[in-house]
């Protein structure tokens, strides 16, 4: 039933976006594809952090793996998009497994440090093997519109369709996973590992699984990015990309898939919007160039001050008074019957304790 509901919601969204993309300019279609890329990457990360309680500063590296797999399979094997995307996700998942095993043994800053190292080191492999991976110049990804759609079909619209479809499928899959036994077990591990272990859960395996799922999402996003920009180069997968993903997940609301959509929208659209606004008000280009960076910081601070749980939690809080009946009907969650530790309180400041569980 859940699957059916999520799938039908995704189909409705696909129809709306598909219809809208026909009316959009090529640049807006390009942005739509970009947003879809970030939705997938942030959704994977938000599941990892919000549900399983692990952090990663290295998801840019998994995106790089997905992107290079996409470039290589398109160039050498001429695979179509429907085969390239799952293959890239699978490759990143395979790479994510050993990292996940290591990550399951690390906590807090150590885990952050280990994953950060991955983000720094991995993209420079391309410089090490310029013959296969194209070095600094990168590899181009020859994407063409399928002939069935006609010769005049804009490439950017096709790219947007592919990316939006992949993003919706990912969201449905993650929403179902979060609602499944696995998702409930992740939350149990996140909230109290000792209690979860006492309840018979295999904590280590669950943490590794979360990491693999999350890496697969990042790999898929990397392949989508390759399809959108038609070029894969190490310069696109810097540490700042990994940080941007984390920022997106936090702004949107950790653990919330709708929050991932908000985070992606802010990361992609805010800089362009602010630059346009600044230049159209007659500011010099040099000044206008610095405004998005400042605006980004201000938005981050404002969101954290106003909605500590992220945009999605904030919206939910604003909507709550309008739905008193539903609020009263809300059943008591299994996990809240578990004893709350001080650890738990630290992670969830009072007032934000509902933030993660609802959406997934």
């Amino acid at each position, binding site marked *: 039933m859940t699957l059916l509901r999520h799938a039908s919601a995704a189909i409705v969204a696909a129809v709306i976006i598909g219809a809208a993309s026909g009316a959009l300019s090529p640049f807006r279609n390009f942005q739509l594809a970009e947003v879809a890329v970030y939705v997938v990457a942030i959704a994977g990360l938000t599941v990892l952090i919000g549900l399983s309680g692990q952090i990663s500063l290295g998801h840019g590296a998994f995106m790089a793996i997905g992107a290079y797999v996409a470039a290589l399979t398109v160039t050498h094997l001429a695979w179509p998009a429907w085969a390239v995307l799952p293959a890239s996700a699978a490759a990143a998942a395979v790479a994510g497994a050993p990292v996940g095993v290591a990550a399951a043994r690390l906590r807090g800053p150590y885990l952050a440090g280990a994953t950060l190292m991955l983000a720094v080191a991995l993209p420079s492999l391309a410089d090490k093997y310029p013959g296969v991976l194209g070095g600094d110049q990168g590899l181009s990804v020859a994407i063409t519109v399928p002939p069935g759609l006609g010769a005049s079909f804009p490439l950017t619209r096709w790219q947007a369709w592919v990316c939006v479809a992949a993003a919706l499928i990912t969201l449905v899959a993650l929403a179902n996973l979060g609602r499944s036994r696995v998702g409930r077990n992740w939350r149990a591990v996140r909230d109290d590992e000792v209690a979860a272990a006492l309840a018979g859960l295999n904590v280590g395996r669950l943490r590794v699984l979360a990491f693999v799922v999350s890496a697969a999402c990042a790999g898929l996003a990397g392949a989508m990015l390759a399809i959108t*920009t038609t070029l894969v180069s190490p310069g696109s997968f810097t540490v700042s990309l990994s940080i941007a993903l984390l920022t997106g997940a936090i702004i949107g609301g950790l653990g919330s898939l*709708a929050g991932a959509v908000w985070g992606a929208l802010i990361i992609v659209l805010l800089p362009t919007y602010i630059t346009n606004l600044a230049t159209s008000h007659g500011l010099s280009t040099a000044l206008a160039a610095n405004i998005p960076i400042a605006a980004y910081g201000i938005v981050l601070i404002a969101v954290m001050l106003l909605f500590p749980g992220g945009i999605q939690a904030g919206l939910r809080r604003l909507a709550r008074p309008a739905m008193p009946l539903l609020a009263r009907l809300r059943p008591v969650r299994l996990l809240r019957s578990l004893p709350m530790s001080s650890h738990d309180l630290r992670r969830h400041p009072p007032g934000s304790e509902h933030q993660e569980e609802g959406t997934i």
Partner: protein
Amino acid sequence: MNRRHRVRFPALIAASAALALLAAACGGGSAGGGGGGAAASAPGITAHQILIGSHQPLTGPAAPGYSEIAPASNAYFQYVNAHGGIYGRKIKYTYLDDGYDPSKTVSVVHQLVLQDNVFAIFDGLGTPTHLAVMNFLNSSKVPDVFVASGCACWNNPAQAPETFGWQIDYIREGKILGAYIKKHFAGKKIGYFYQNDEFGQDGVKGLDYEIPKSQVVSRQSYVPTNTNVGPQVAALKAAGAQVVVSFSIPAFTALFKLTSLKLGYNPTLAVSNVGSDPLTLDGLLQAFAKQAGKAVNGAALTQGIITDGYLPSLGDTGNSWIALFKKVHDTYDAKAPFDGNVLYGEAVAYTFVQAMLKAGKNPTRASLVNAINAGLPQGPSVAPYAFSATDHAGITGAYIGVIKGSAIAPKTPVYVTGTSATSPVTVYSGSQEPAPGSGMP
């Protein structure tokens, strides 16, 4: 739980739909460009305007120095606009910040081409950044003229017919520097210090064509993201390199100089043109020393650095080109220092105006490309351009000079060469025409 879930999941649809509507609402505004009737011969061209775009590092690691280039180009365009424009059309130059980050370059260039409908991309700055959009520009048939980078990769007319270089490519530059060092430092131990990407590797390739391999005692590279060059400088010192040839951006030329100062190492330094602008180096040296809690005389440290130049020397105030660009700078861009970056920006803008005038009264994207393929007159550069249908490299020669005061004092005549190992480095026999009195090509 089910009940709550039923309420929540539609938030996803709501968000998706909101995205679609938002995008649709924003999308409406961009369609109405180019309503200039018969005069609109191509995208970005109206009866009164030519719209061109660029990606530039206005923030980030490459911004010091390089962020002056686009405003300087714009200053020259304003001068042209004030003197009749190009067949009556005024140039509008939109340059967006990419922070020297290739993924941002992709985004801003898509915006310029797909949303703003620019006629051409002009002087896009940086090798890794511009490589990220070269495919897109060529497959979209958008002229990609005078890339601000000396990578040999812009010269690929078969696969990238829309892309043209402008400044001397790093292979030619390496050869000209290498030939000078071979001649003047025979028997000395030579070390290389270079950026580990196309820029540094192309430069080293050119150097190796000229300098005997047995003379090179150490080859050290850096990546722009790691500002600790201590190990590299120590290795050069340990190898006993008496002359160090550096293919570095200004920030790393400054870091090399400061680090070698700290290690008590003082080799003769030869730096490629992109990393040797004296005023930029002076500022960087002082800023870096200040960060470390020390004060240095930046200008004094740069004196005697060997470098090459493909535009007239800023110190040559009697040169008609310098006089013209100084005049334009003082009128339209006076806030910036009149340094090598400003000279670069104005000179490349002059070349663009030359090309647009050749492209005809009703220019199209194809006519601009054809005009450059037919060759351009030399203009402000000291050596001729290589432009032809089969060669998209830019300036083919340079002179060697040393930093004296805040300018480069030429020491040799202008040399020209090709990009292959066998093409000789020869003295250029022609001479540079003076700048036109009107300041217009």
